[in-house]
């Protein structure tokens, strides 16, 4: 640490000048970007998230750009690649905004369709007076995705708000949309304790699954004195079938970084670490890019924006281990070790990464921070329920009509999410159950989905909030199979350190498979329950403790699906 008292007045002046120039640069950049956006009549937003890219989004983007060019529309039309637009199952998605006209979204866009959109719709719209409606060919109109469906209207976007209208690779766009204003506010006007107070007041709880109050965590960490303190972003989204965090990193990396900067300032951290799942190359690329930009513009490094706050960031990849979502395992992994959890205490805030005081927050948690600071704790706390404030992003997948990324206020019912936003079950089938919390969560049967999503109510029915996976199952899906799938997953992902999880999980899976194969007996089901109890009680970490959840909740709500597969023995046999 630099002893600031030793700086000469000349040096201080020099530093102040650098900081002032940095601020000026940012403001200029925001202004120029806003002006640039104003200049165009037409904005074509093309989703460039992993999902839409996988569906061909890259070539759609190219087609849009080249069509604009070849039709000499560059002066009037701007093509913007964006983060996730939400309705991933219908991607690649393209949204067109023309001054004076209602925005239009196209689904399942192909390169050919992209060229047609430019030619038939954009070019025509520019030529046609605003009042005059446009005639659109059937070919195109078949691909129009109405924006007034509940999927879009019922959502409340906080974390996802910036994503679908801005280029995640551009710092200019982020600041033009108000980015880093929250950081400025914090550095210029708030003491660390005031930041913590604000976050506490907002009621924000960790979005990684356990729901620990974020402000409280920061407060604990802020009270520890250490030579070095770390702020870690847990981006090791492990729930298979959930991709909120990857989309957030891809779609709004600066928001996550800004959230981390604010948290680091509040707890007094010196270095930040992003631990990102290796399966998310795009998220990694975008975050690396954001870090580079932030460094370049003085948002990372020494004396950030002239505040005297110094903070650097490192980015590291996971290597395929679900258990590394657990805090102590994640830190072990960052240290270059096996990702095995260790007993607590000591807690990470006391002795974490490399033995230093560390605070770990999940991606979505951090993405909420700049919004809370900018709009105030009261605004945030006005959304949600008693004990669960704000919104929650879910990855709505499975047998649902409109699958994708959705964000709703806490307290929204599962039924609203599935039936309204998701448009109900696909192919006219009947809903059977919804699973939240991934492999650590549980099934919620159809007759209980009027349940409001919030940490406590989900727990009360034997599931958990989790990180935000929400899988819809229809009447044809086998509950026993899905339970076997989840348990198989956790057995694969058990670190192997503690006996209850390592052997218990494996033995339970053998019994479950036996039952699934119609070779099991009532006694086997009893043994499953017995192992579940031992695992819940004696496992070292959350992975082992919660691994039985999918099995137990399916046994509780769908006993008949198990019974139907059992071999009758003893008194049950006729």
């Amino acid at each position, binding site marked *: 640490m630099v002893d600031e008292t030793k700086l000469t007045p000349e040096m201080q002046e020099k530093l102040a000048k650098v900081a002032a120039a940095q601020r000026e640069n940012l403001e200029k950049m925001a202004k120029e970007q806003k002006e640039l956006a104003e200049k165009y009549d037409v904005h074509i937003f093309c989703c460039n998230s992993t999902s839409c890219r996988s569906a061909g989004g890259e070539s759609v983007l190219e087609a849009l750009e080249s069509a604009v060019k070849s039709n000499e529309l560059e002066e009037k039309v701007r093509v913007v690649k964006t983060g996730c637009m939400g309705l991933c199952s219908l991607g690649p998605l393209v949204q067109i905004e023309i001054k004076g006209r209602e925005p239009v979204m196209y689904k399942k866009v192909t390169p050919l369709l992209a060229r047609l959109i430019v030619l038939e719709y954009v070019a025509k719209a520019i030529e046609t007076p605003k009042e005059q409606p446009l005639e659109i060919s059937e070919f195109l109109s078949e691909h129009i995705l109405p924006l007034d469906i509940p999927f879009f209207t019922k959502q409340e976007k906080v974390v996802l708000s910036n994503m679908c209208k801005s280029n995640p690779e551009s710092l200019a766009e982020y600041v033009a949309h108000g980015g880093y204003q929250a950081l400025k506010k914090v550095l210029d006007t708030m003491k660390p304790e005031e930041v913590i107070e604000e976050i506490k007041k907002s009621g924000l709880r960790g979005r990684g699954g356990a729901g620990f109050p974020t402000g409280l965590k920061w407060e604990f960490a802020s009270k520890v004195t250490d030579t070095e303190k770390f702020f870690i972003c847990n981006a090791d989204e492990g729930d298979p079938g959930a991709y909120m965090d990857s989309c957030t990193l891809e779609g709004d990396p600066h928001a996550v970084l800004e959230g981390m900067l604010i948290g680091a300032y509040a707890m007094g951290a010196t270095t930040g670490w992003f631990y990102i799942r290796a399966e998310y190359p795009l998220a990694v690329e975008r975050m690396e890019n954001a870090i580079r930009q932030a460094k370049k513009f003085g948002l990372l490094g020494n004396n950030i924006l002239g505040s005297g706050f110094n903070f650097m960031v490192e980015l590291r990849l996971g290597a395929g281990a679900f258990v590394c979502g657990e805090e102590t395992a994640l830190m072990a992994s960052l240290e270059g070790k096996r990702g095995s959890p260790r007993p607590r205490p000591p807690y990470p805030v006391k002795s974490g990464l490399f033995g230093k005081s560390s605070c770990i927050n999940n991606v979505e948690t951090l993405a909420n921070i700049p919004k809370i600071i900018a709009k105030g704790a009261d605004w945030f706390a006005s959304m949600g329920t008693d004990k669960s404030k704000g919104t929650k992003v879910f990855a709505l997948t499975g047998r649902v009509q409109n699958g994708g990324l959705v964000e709703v206020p806490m307290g929204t019912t599962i039924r609203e999410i599935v039936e309204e936003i998701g448009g109900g079950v696909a192919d006219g089938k009947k809903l059977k159950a919804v699973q939240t919390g991934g492999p650590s969560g549980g099934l919620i049967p159809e007759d209980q989905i009027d349940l409001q999503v919030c940490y406590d109510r989900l727990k009360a029915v034997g599931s958990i909030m989790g990180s935000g996976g929400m899988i819809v199952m229809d009447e044809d899906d086998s509950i026993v199979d899905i339970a076997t799938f989840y348990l198989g997953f956790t057995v694969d992902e*058990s670190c*192997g350190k*503690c006996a209850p999880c390592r052997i218990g999980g494996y*033995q339970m899976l053998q019994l479950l498979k036996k039952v699934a194969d119609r070779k099991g007996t009532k006694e086997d089901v009893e043994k499953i329950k017995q*192992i579940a*109890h031992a695992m819940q*009680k*004696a496992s070292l970490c959350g992975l082992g403790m919660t691994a039985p959840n999918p099995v137990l909740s399916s046994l509780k709500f769908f006993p008949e699906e198990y019974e139907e597969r059992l071999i009758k023995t003893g008194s049950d046999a006729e």
Partner: protein
Amino acid sequence: MTMIKARIDNIEVEVEEGTTILEAAEQVQVKIPTLCKHPDLCATAACGICVVKVAGRPNLIRACCTPLDNGMEITTRDPELVEVRRNVIELILSKHPNECLTCIRNGNCELQKLSADFGIRCEEYESIVPDLPKDDSTKSIVLDPRKCINCGRCVEVCQNQQAVWALSFLNRGISTQIAAAGGIPLAESPCIKCGQCSAHCPTGAITEYDDTLAVWSAINDEKKHCVVQIAPAVRVAIGEAFGLKPGELTTGKLYAALRRIGFDAVFDTNFSADLTIMEEASEFVERFVNKTAPLPLITSCCPAWVDFMEKYHYDMIPYFSSCKSPQGMLGALAKTYYADKKGIKPEDMVVVSIMPCTAKKYEISRSKDMYSSGVQDVDYSLTTREVARMLKQSGIDFLALAEEEADSLLGEYTGAGTIFGYTGGVMEAALRTAYYFVTGEDPKDLDFVQTRGLEGIKEAEIDIKGTKIRIAVAHGTGNVETVVNRIRHAIETGEELPYHFVEVMACPGGCIGGGGQPTGVTDKVRLERTAGLEKDDHAHQIRCSHENKEVQKLYEDFLGKPLSEKSHELLHTHYVPRPCYKR
């Protein structure tokens, strides 16, 4: 010191801050069962058996790694806890072969005991023992991953206590197993055969390489003249296998028992420990006074340390004492000096040694110097544990035996010879004789207490009539690096040497805590065994090696003088670098 007050099973308990629930419970006579926690080692928190309830906490808490907190209300037993523990044991048993009757640890296996305590009477879950091969490549210790319960003790010992990094975990989940890096044979790993893993293993997953059958057939071979030697540390530990307390001296009974099972002569490694001192103290004086070779002088009687040095600290070779270990010296003399006197051809002899050590099995063939009699000097090296089994098998009522004496020529020993068995003992014995060599008189106080105790590294300055000798004693290879690095630093920079004389023993506590000793060693046991040897030292009239009559006679009749040509031929050895991969 902050004290913590809490209640365990409704009994008030007060302990120092940082004491775990498991340790605190022992103070109120509650033994919480555990399979993975060993008093020597950091808790791995692996087995999940030591779970207890803490009032106000929804989850069960592991007693082994949770410090007691003020006001905690702890329940260590109730039907649910018993149920959970039993279930976890049943699960562990399902992945452990049901081979107790044919297992080397039958009767002293921690898993077997726990299973008995919990009254487990059936196999609750289908057996899922993986088909994994044994690794006996070192011929010193044997790894049987099928019997491993993944408690992590051996890895903790090997990586952290011993800093050897031979053992590690491989794979994850149900496939997790212990193995050397990437699953290569242990013999190709940094393993120094210290056997601390085997001494800490709760089951039969890591054991000594069993040479008892070969020794039985040697004994039963009438054409062979079979002699045996007993290392210092064995006599205070073997009794444990027969129900004696650690540290009880059984030398005389051991001589008697070994004769009864058929050895033709019973010698004592303590004799050759005295001889080692004659050679090593002479070597030290040579280097210190006559500067014939560089200082510091580093002891070489621990084969695991020699192996470690040759692999990772071979720049220390010039400082190593060229003396063979007492085991090696006795082997060489038995097949030359003794064989001559008895008129027996060395090839008709079998020399067996009983050692507290698994690395001694490696030492007997480690270089061509171990064949100085023309044939292999020591044929078999047994651990204390193996000999205890042989004695039991032979039906001898060990505890009831009358005490006997060792055979002459290679049997007499002094107090200095016997203390080779604990950390600092070699140094102390050497100092007694070096003092005499330098000054011509014995030191007034023979007890060099600075060398004693279980501190990992002991440093002192010894005054030999005005001449200051700086010494260091390190035990547990985890402590060696510090000492070696200090020496290295001084040599590189030309600064004054931190030490003139250094003793290293690979096992914590020295040989009394050796990897071949009865299992269940803790610091308490180490101190008790040490006390046994100290008692033996003090019980001897003669407590200096140079006063050993048989040693004196050996020099008169055979060797000439210390460091003579003959000595070099039979009692000294060479070292070569044996680089191994990064540990």
